[in-house]
């Protein structure tokens, strides 16, 4: 293909969008709707990932040491704890420190003034590498000599992991379905454009136009529709997400959820929307053209 034809081919592609105004409008609207849903699920999944990661870092196992052990013996157990596979770090908390934390946690409430350090045990705060293996690590910790008991909230960690997995699967399924829907709509729009110009295509083939020359305007049309949808969806997503984050920040009961700002995910979102728009546009038009090429 010669470079001097490129302008003509691009112009023809863009002309097609206006020639089939209503179908183009419908294709852009459906693409916007699909990409907004795809984008929403992607950003929700990303936020949930961050929350689960944060939870992984903050959730710990408390390992209580047998009261019969001396201070030195209690401290030496830390080495054995650190040798376990899934242990990221362990911090020794003496019974005196534990009492102080207890008093601090209860704002010096006089109801607990009778509690003495001897009533409590030395303990380790154990942070894990992988929270999904919390149950196994908890079992291993219980087996260590000198460990009286443990306190691990693995149901909560497992629950979060399950939600994360389910959301990932739902997101992937939805993204796939919605991309296919966008693809079909753009494909149909381009098919309509091709049907409308089937006589022109037949003449082009008859006088010796190459398939690439015939194809390019329709690919430009599909690509432009996909990109228009992607740009509009991106803007809409940005506004909607920012509004949602601002609203959530105002509700006290939702403070547990922390969402990243849209600016933090700007580049990946541009990449996701751009790639999705380009994909549905080009693949959608390419597949519809093939049927018309055997003239």
């Amino acid at each position, binding site marked *: 293909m010669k470079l001097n034809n490129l302008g003509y081919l691009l112009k023809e592609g863009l002309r097609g969008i206006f020639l089939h105004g209503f179908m183009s409008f419908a294709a852009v609207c459906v693409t916007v709707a699909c990409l907004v849903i795809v984008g929403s699920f992607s950003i929700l999944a990303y936020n949930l990932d961050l929350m689960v990661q944060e939870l992984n870092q903050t959730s710990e196992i408390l390992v209580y040491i047998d009261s019969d052990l001396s201070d030195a013996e209690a401290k030496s157990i830390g080495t054995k704890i650190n040798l376990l596979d899934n242990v990221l770090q362990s911090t020794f908390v003496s019974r005196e420190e534990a009492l102080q934390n207890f008093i601090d946690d209860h704002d010096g409430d006089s109801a607990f003034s009778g509690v003495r350090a001897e009533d409590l045990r030395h303990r380790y705060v154990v942070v894990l590498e992988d929270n999904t293996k919390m149950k196994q690590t908890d079992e291993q910790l219980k087996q260590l000599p000198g460990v009286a008991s443990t306190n691990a909230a693995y149901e909560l960690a497992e629950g979060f992991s399950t939600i994360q997995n389910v959301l990932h699967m739902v997101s992937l399924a939805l993204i796939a379905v919605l991309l296919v829907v966008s693809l079909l709509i753009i494909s149909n729009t381009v098919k309509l454009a091709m049907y409308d110009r089937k006589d022109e295509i037949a*003449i082009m083939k008859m006088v*010796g*136009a*190459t398939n690439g020359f015939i194809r390019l305007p329709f690919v430009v049309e599909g690509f432009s529709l996909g990109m228009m949808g992607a740009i509009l969806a991106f803007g809409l997503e940005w506004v909607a997400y920012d509004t949602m984050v601002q609203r959530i920040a105002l509700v006290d009961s939702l403070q547990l959820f922390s969402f990243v700002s849209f600016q933090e995910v700007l580049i990946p979102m541009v990449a996701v929307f751009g790639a999705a728009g380009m994909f549905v546009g080009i693949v959608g038009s390419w597949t519809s053209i093939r049927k018309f090429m055997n003239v």
Partner: protein
Amino acid sequence: MIQFIDVVKSYEQGNNALNGVTMQIEDGEFCFLVGPSGSGKSTIIKLITGELKPTSGAVHVNGYSLERIRKREIPYLRRTVGVVFQDFRLIDKMTVYENVAFAMRVVGAREKEIKERVPYVLELVGLEGKMSRHPHEMSGGEQQRLAIARALVNNPSTIIADEPTGNLDPERSFEIMALLQEINNLGTTVLVVTHAQNLVELFNKRVIAIDEGLVVSDGTEEENEDEAE
């Protein structure tokens, strides 16, 4: 040059359109292809333009061997063969100039070349004063002239006219045939598929007659009559 060597063409339904056609049309010749409906004329045109491939035998058109041509070579074969149809196949929303320019543009011609060549070809077919008209504003004869101009504009070495006078009155038919004769005089090979016996007799050119997928006679009207006697 167009050369058919023992060409058989069978369709999927099992019927044979051509049963061993052998013929040769030299560069610069003017030739009629005649025969009743269903005799195989359309199949011959489709084989020449690369729409079909022969089931067996060999077809050579302007240096391309159709029995082993690659798909991506077909556009380049078609640039050597201009085709004119009975129903003109013009684009109504385009003007006369645009219809012809379109044929050049889609094969990658530069705008400068298009601006030079289109008026020249339109003058050749007698439409120089009607460049801004649309096909529906023109008579059948003028539309066929426009179709011929479009077929000619990329300077093919061969023009195939498939029933070019089928929709025209006798006077316009003669004009179109005279125009094709003029184009042939300029060195272009012309193959006219027709039912119009009067035109065939009037122009006294080589006539290839096809029936039931076979060449039944080949020569000028006079030669064929002599042979029959």
